[in-house]
């Protein structure tokens, strides 16, 4: 922890460096580090992908299960909410004794952070399905599992997608801090940049991180729209949605 404190203290002296920095510095940085930056982007995406692959089945299963019991729903949603308020550094620290350093504690933390949006949106989405529709399904002789699979989950998918989108946006940022405990990813350059007072390194990496987040956000927004269209909803389509929808249908 003392390293972090020094880092923060040191960063107060960054101002003069910032003024001195010119376009040239950025060109030098990019020519020297572009390859490495790409590797870090890949690492970052890898951490996010593994975390989401673990988080999605857990979150959706929990979201489905708590629709059967209101008390369980309140408790689970509350816990997921509380988990989100734990600072990421603290959560890594708590998990290191169990999972060691590097990727594992970070991935576990990211799974934890993504639960609130995933569980909540699954739950809200499933409950939001019109009662008449589930009643009709019952009356036509669908079992509870058939109703879930054929009616409720498909109808809730757009809302679940929104949860996924929120989760990804949250954990891309948190994953950057994971570099502090050795998980790699874009956080590596940010910490290195702070340590070496390399402003172009910090700025460029941050911009890349933001662009990555926006790209994921956009990607999920489009897929959410595709799911809505699939459900027969009438929506204002983004241009890529329209193009993809044409190709798909």
């Amino acid at each position: 922890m003392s390293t972090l404190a020094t880092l923060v203290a040191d960063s107060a002296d960054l101002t003069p460096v910032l003024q001195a920095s010119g376009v040239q510095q950025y060109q030098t940085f990019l020519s020297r580090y572009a390859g490495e930056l790409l590797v870090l982007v890949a690492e970052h995406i890898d951490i996010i992908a593994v975390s989401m692959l673990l988080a999605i089945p857990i979150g959706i299963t929990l979201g489905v299960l708590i629709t059967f019991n209101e008390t369980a729903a309140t408790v689970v949603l509350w816990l997921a909410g509380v988990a989100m308020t734990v600072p990421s550094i603290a959560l890594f620290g708590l998990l290191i004794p169990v999972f060691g350093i590097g990727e594992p504690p970070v991935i576990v933390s990211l799974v934890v952070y993504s639960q609130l949006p995933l569980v909540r949106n699954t739950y809200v989405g499933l409950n939001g399905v019109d009662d008449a529709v589930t009643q009709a399904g019952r009356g036509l002789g669908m079992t509870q599992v058939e109703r879930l699979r054929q009616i409720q989950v498909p109808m809730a998918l757009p809302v679940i997608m929104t949860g996924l989108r929120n989760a990804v946006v949250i954990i891309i940022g948190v994953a950057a801090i994971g570099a502090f405990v050795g998980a790699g990813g874009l956080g590596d350059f940010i910490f290195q940049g702070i340590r070496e007072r390399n402003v172009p390194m910090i700025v460029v990496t941050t911009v890349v991180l933001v662009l990555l987040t926006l790209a994921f956000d956009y990607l999920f927004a489009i897929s959410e729209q595709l799911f809505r269209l699939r459900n027969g909803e009438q929506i204002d389509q983004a241009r890529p949605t329209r193009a993809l929808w044409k190709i798909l249908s």
Partner: protein
Amino acid sequence: MSQHAIEFENVRKSYGDTLALDGISFSVEPGTTTVLVGPSGCGKTTTMKLVNRLEDPTDGTVKFEGQDVQEVDKIDLRRSIGYVIQDIGLFDHMTVAENVATVPRLLDWDEERIDERVDELLELMDLPPAQYREDYPRELSGGQRQRVGVARALAADPDVMLMDEPFGALDPITRDNLQDEFLEIQEQINTTILFVTHDIDEALKMGDKIAIYDVGEVVQYDTPENILENPATEFVEDFIGQNRGLKKLQVLEVGHIMSTDGRIVGQSWADVRSTGSVPAEVATDESGTPAHVAADQSTETALSKLVESDGSKLPVVENGSVVGTVSVDQINDASSEPKEIVYE
């Protein structure tokens, strides 16, 4: 052996402290439409849900085709009974064809058979498959959605169909059209129908038999004609409301009251018209040509034709020949209310 399609024997149902049904007993004959009618909250929906076991009785027995429904697997039972509700509950994320195919899919029919059945039903419901198969429910009008709901309920060709206020959410004109269409469809499908409504006029129009509900009880179970003729209680009379005579005209068929003697009875209708040998008293329409009604049309229709013409007798035509005549007086006699009603 004559078997009832559905039987209720002393059925009671309570939800906690609320007694929804207080011992009802009646049976529904195969191939008929039985309408449950009564004010809101009197137990009609509950009665219906007992048939496909969306609810189980607190007491008494409900039989489906002779068998106690408690002995039948719920899921199998529901798949063999059609079910239509007021809110329709169409699956908005599925196309019209997928909606209609719901029960056949659950029953594992092969795709080819499902496709054929879907087309057949959409045709029957006046929704040409080529045009509507791939539409989503949101793209349809209220009336069309309700038709899809009915097609979905009929998909696996159930012997019995339950319809809970199926036309209740539609505007009066659409509702009227759908009622007429449904009466025609019903003749083609030969399904036993249990139909719930809170509208006495709809009940009189749709029902072969009507069960009138007062809170938790069936107070009269009879044909529309008999209910109009002899309301069992003051409640029934109030529920029927005003214009009982006019309502009777709507349900009474011309064939029941026509007189079968007269000069033209027995002749071919084409001959009567073409020879110009039409007696002066025979009614004519606006263009001066002789008017007629069919034996199964309502006396209301006959009266309307008589009122619009100068003649006093309207020929009743069946299969091309004149089988009788009706006059304003006869209709008047048939519709006039009994002078005095005595309640037990």
